[in-house]
């Protein structure tokens, strides 16, 4: 690939209905680019979970995807409340989501563990009161 392909999205934190639109768009683009279903699935699920998290917890943010020769890098950045205890947040079933979010079908405490499961690398850079940036990589 001569030049890396990049996609940028603003994730609207006010609108739960539109959450996931960026992931759907990325899925479509990766399909057009001819990536294997396995790679597309990993990237889109991890990104979708991240997008939902940004809407639920952080009032939105930005999503950037870069396709290089040997990996797909997803960077999700928000200026939300930050994650006070990353270790706990990474445990399956641990959730700080409110009941109204559970009523919408999310907040089972599977988001971050799932993002890690579907990607080859995941790094969480977070500061309470400042925001969170999650970088995920899927190897090609």
């Amino acid at each position: 690939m001569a030049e890396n392909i990049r996609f940028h999205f603003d994730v609207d934190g006010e609108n739960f209905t539109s959450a996931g639109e960026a992931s759907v768009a990325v899925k479509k683009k990766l399909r057009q680019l001819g990536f294997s279903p396995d790679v597309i699935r990993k990237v889109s699920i991890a990104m979708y979970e991240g997008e939902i998290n940004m809407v639920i917890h952080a009032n939105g943010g930005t999503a950037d995807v870069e396709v290089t020769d040997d990996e797909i890098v997803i960077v999700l950045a928000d200026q939300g409340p930050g994650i006070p205890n990353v270790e706990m947040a990474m445990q399956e079933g641990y959730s700080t989501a409110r009941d109204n979010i559970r009523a919408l079908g999310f907040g089972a405490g599977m988001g971050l563990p799932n993002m890690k499961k579907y990607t080859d690398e995941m790094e969480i850079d977070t500061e309470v009161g400042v925001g969170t940036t999650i970088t995920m990589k899927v190897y090609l």
Partner: protein
Amino acid sequence: MKIGEIKELLHAELLCGEEYLDHDVFAACCSDMMSDVLAFVKDQGVLLTGLLNSQVIRTANMMDMVCIVIVRNKVPTEEMIELASDSGLVLMRSPLRAFEASGVLYYAGLGRREEDG
């Protein structure tokens, strides 16, 4: 099992995706928790749910599912139907409850392993 057969078995009303009724599916998942669907679904082509919002459609799309059955005759929004149609998914609604609908499909052989008899 053909998606069309699911529609018949569940006495369902088709809301979109008529062109896919001939597609084969091999297993299903029943949940109102999309977090769990994202975490545990592997090759299930059908989602049975009583949850009504656009994330149901997006979750199914992300998991490469092909058919969504809304149980208890709930009525999805126009937006959901449109989103499902744009995503190339079959969307239907059934009067059966989630437990009954799952049982009917399982009894008819959907997702049943040989060792289950």
